[in-house]
């Protein structure tokens, strides 16, 4: 190895090592969709979406154990809970009511029992506390004392003949949906009954790195539990964790299989065409260097990398396989005595042009107001530039004299020359253009975009979906995907909005527009509402005396209710605040309802069950300031729709920039057309074919079209720059080989079971193949007398 070569190889090795070190130390990958796709106008929803996605409710698995007897199931759940709680990924296991909860509820609510009498105190309390109302209250107290819970009621009745505290406890119980029963201290729900465990994980349900081992542990430990049980036990599981892990596992299995097939096919292709696997390795070096440089640069600019940037950017950098392949083909087809420097001199300009036009196309994305698109632009531009740089500087030092044309290459070349020449070549070029335009005219108006991101995942196992749904219905788990947010600059403002919202939702439930809802309103009201209750109570004349008369008439010993009179005389206690609940053993029940938004505001969430009339809900909340309805799936869909439509416009702008660059380079219509048209026509025709086939287009199809545009321009450009002769032959070979390798890598994705990968592969395969066909066809428009390279 000569000194120059050694120096260059060493420089790249050291540079790569430094980039790798920097990346390893700074690498931070985020997966929050809202960080990637949210512009400045969606901050509230984005903040709520992010927090709900990471909330304890989202991180909670529901486990249902069935046995021949609920008591056996509860006993099994008790034993299992102990072992589950020791797993490092498990944050909390709840198997029954918190024994401290009732005491905490008494301590917080009993002194304030009269502050929660009515959500409309000015209307209700004058009636409820009238003489007739007090007589009815006394009779109600008698019935309550006769009931099984009478002993509990009797303990409080002397201070609370109105049963205000008992009503509060009922409201708290109803807040949980009322689906959970308690058997021997453990939760039971559903019919057939299941013992229920709520297991909250430390990390997100979608963090498969942590969830996979936990799910494996669940299966193993339950199997051990079932083996040791005298009665058969069956397990049901609900939670996003299983679906996320299963989805990722399928994606990995799919990717592994496709990668293996693709790699094998590439090796065979290179062995046949170039008789060398070494060349295949050479083509990976610029890709690897490009990825490394792109990652490091993006981390330096943004501080973190989004997983979507990695995925999209890596796919876009895949365009760069044609740079080293172009160099290798020209080296293989070199004239006798021609050295690397000569070959490089001929391909340097077209290669730089190709990189420049590709970067220009990506750079247009950088003007987007969506942070994720800007990040992709930086990643892809740096990656392409680094790949081109390494192709021009490093790869030439690694080329060997043993790389020569093979018989297969000669045969392929002969066929390509025949296909692209002859008296009908021009007519074919015109027909190809007309055909592409006709397809576009028919198909483009029929293109429908599907922005449902969930449709890009592989279909879920129907049995697991049914099990998940049945268990969630058994415990009446609220839907996390659709909720209401009452926002305000502080807790009191948000609580006032929440109070009004609860009233409207109650009316909607009564009218059948909604099955139910879970709200912080069951736990705490605004200070204003509590104080209004206190005022309405204090405004009642001689309430203690009138209550005594009513109690006496109902057969009570009125003297036993002196505590009630004393409570009326005492100053009203301070209203209950959210902070009081958060500082108590009731914190875990209350915390999921309250979010602190990034701008200092507070959002109080209400979760819905069985929303049947969304229009009625919208009408109900319209007059309420600070209250918004949030549909997570619809929100994600709109984010993707924005991303897709803006990307489409920016891609169009990028394409125009590329055409302008080519025009400036060639200053003549024909070479500009030959260089630009294959990519533009192929991308347009591919999209149109989707429309004709009735296949909804997705974001991943758009990504594939970006690939097509990048590669298509490279094909046209390489052919135009090389002209005819040996250089032209080398370019013919390189673009054909690159098309083959692209079909064997991205094109194979079209066979994936994953809709996302299938979309990318389909558009890439069709588009890249069409680009090559158009490029070879239009090359005839540049036909010149054959000339040698020299």
């Amino acid at each position, binding site marked *: 190895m000569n000194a120059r070569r050694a120096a260059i190889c060493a420089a790249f090795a050291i540079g790569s090592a430094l980039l790798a070190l920097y990346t390893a130390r700074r690498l931070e990958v985020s997966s929050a969709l809202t960080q990637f796709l949210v512009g400045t106008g969606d901050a509230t929803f984005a903040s709520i979406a992010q927090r709900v996605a990471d909330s304890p409710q989202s991180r909670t698995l529901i486990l249902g154990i069935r046995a021949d*007897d*609920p*008591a056996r199931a*509860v006993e099994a759940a008790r034993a299992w809970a102990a072992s589950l709680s020791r797993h490092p990924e498990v944050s909390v296991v709840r198997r029954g*009511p918190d024994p401290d909860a*009732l005491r905490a509820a008494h301590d917080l609510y009993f002194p304030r029992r009269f502050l929660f009498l009515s959500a409309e105190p000015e209307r209700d309390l004058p009636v409820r506390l009238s003489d007739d109302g007090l007589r009815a209250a006394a009779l109600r107290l*008698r*019935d309550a*004392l*006769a*009931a*099984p*819970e*009478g*002993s*509990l009621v*009797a*303990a409080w*009745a*002397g201070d609370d003949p109105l049963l205000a505290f008992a009503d509060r406890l009922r409201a708290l*119980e109803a807040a949980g949906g*009322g689906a*959970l*029963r*308690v*058997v*021997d*201290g453990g939760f*039971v729900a559903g*019919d057939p*009954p299941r013992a229920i465990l709520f297991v909250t994980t430390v990390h997100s349900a979608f963090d498969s790195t942590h969830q996979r081992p936990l799910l494996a542990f669940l299966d193993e430990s339950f199997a051990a539990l079932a083996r040791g049980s005298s009665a058969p036990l069956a397990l049901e599981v609900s939670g996003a964790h299983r679906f996320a892990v299963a989805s990722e596992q399928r994606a990995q299995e799919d990717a592994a299989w496709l990668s293996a097939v693709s790699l094998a096919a590439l090796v065979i292709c290179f062995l046949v065409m170039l008789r060398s696997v070494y060349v295949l390795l050479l083509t990976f070096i610029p890709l690897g260097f490009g990825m490394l440089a792109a990652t490091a640069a993006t981390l330096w600019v943004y501080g973190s990398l989004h997983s979507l940037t990695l995925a999209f950017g890596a796919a876009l950098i895949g365009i760069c396989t044609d740079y080293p392949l172009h160099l290798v083909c020209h080296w293989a087809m070199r004239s006798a005595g021609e050295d690397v420097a000569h070959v490089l001199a001929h391909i340097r300009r077209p290669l730089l042009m190709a990189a420049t036009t590709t970067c220009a196309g990506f750079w247009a994305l950088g003007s987007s107001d969506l942070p994720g698109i800007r990040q992709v632009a930086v990643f892809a531009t740096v990656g392409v530039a680094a790949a081109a740089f390494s192709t021009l500087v490093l790869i030439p030092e690694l080329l060997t004299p043993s790389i020569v044309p093979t018989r297969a290459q000669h045969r392929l070349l002969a066929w390509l020359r025949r296909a692209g020449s002859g008296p009908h070549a021009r007519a074919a070029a015109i027909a190809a253009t007309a055909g592409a335009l006709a397809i576009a005219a028919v198909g483009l108006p029929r293109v429908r975009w599907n922005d449902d991101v969930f449709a890009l995942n592989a279909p879920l196992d129907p049995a697991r979906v049914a099990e998940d749904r049945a268990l969630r219905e058994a415990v009446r788990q609220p839907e996390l995907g659709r909720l209401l947010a009452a926002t305000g600059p502080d807790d009191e403002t948000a609580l006032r909005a929440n109070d009004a919202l609860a009233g409207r939702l109650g009316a909607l439930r009564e009218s059948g527009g909604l099955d139910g809802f879970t709200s912080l309103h069951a736990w705490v009201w605004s200070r204003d509402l509590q104080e209004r209750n206190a005022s309405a109570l204090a405004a009642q004349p001689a309430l203690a005396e009138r209550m005594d008369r009513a109690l006496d008439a109902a*057969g*009570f*010993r009125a003297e*036993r*209710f002196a505590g009630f009179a004393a409570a009326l005389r005492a100053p009203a206690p301070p209203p209950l605040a959210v902070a009081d609940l958060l500082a108590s053993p009731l914190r875990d029940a209350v915390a999921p309802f309250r979010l602190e938004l990034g701008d200092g505001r507070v959002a109080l969430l209400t979760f819905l069950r069985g929303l049947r009339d969304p229009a009625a809900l919208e009408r109900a909340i319209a007059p309420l300031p600070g209250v918004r309805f949030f549909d997570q799936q619809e929100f994600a869909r709109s984010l993707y729709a924005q991303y897709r439509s803006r990307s489409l416009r920016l891609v169009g702008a990028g394409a125009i920039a590329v055409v302008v660059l080519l025009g400036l380079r060639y200053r003549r219509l024909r070479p500009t057309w030959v260089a630009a048209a294959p990519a533009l026509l192929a991308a347009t025709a591919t999209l149109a074919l989707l429309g004709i086939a009735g296949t909804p287009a997705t974001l991943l199809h758009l990504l594939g079209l970006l690939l097509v545009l990048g590669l298509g321009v490279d094909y046209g450009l390489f052919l135009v720059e090389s002209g005819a002769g040996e250089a032209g032959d080398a370019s013919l070979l390189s673009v054909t080989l690159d098309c083959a390798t692209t079909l064997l890598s991205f094109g194979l994705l079209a066979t994936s079971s994953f809709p996302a990968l299938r979309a990318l592969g389909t558009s890439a395969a069709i588009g890249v193949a069409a680009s090559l066909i158009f490029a070879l066809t239009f090359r005839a428009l540049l036909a010149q007398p054959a000339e040698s390279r020299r």
Partner: protein
Amino acid sequence: MLVAAPAAAAPTAALLDAESLLRRFAATPGLVARFHEEKQLALLRAPLVSEGAIYFAPPDQLARRVVTPSPATLVIRGDALTLIDATGARSLDLAQIPVARGFVETLRTLLTGDFAALRAAHEVAFRVTSERAPRAWLLELRPRGAPLRGAIDRIEVTGVEDTIGALRIVESSGDETRTRFFDVDAAHAFSPDERARLFPASAP
């Protein structure tokens, strides 16, 4: 009277103690009886009176239907307790209602004849209060542990020969509940339809 009898009458000279009594109760195939209950509370000048019927299907299904003053049904299946009244149906945690728990567990333990369980949960005192036939007896139970011990002072079960006549629960607060049983069918075989109707599996 709650009758525990199998078909053959026990000889009047047979030993009468707690353990033998419970063995005879255990032979009950199923039981239906009416009850009259009075709750004497310190808050009230006169007792609260309720009347209705109880149903027991071994080993662990108990239903108590109140007809007056306000219709309500309490159903126990195993350890699950459901209350159905005018406001709807809901489940209750017996652990939170010691008096109800005392009533349910005492009756169920007696009728299933589980003397070991009875003695484990209570200090048991049994005496014959009238030696002349038919012999009357008193079984006094004092809870050993929480949560019953703090809420219930004692439970007194009285009867004649193989029959339970009354149940009295005296709370630590001084309040007490007396339940008398009559019109008893102690050999009732519940049909599947009756079981489904009287002991529903869960709150609707």
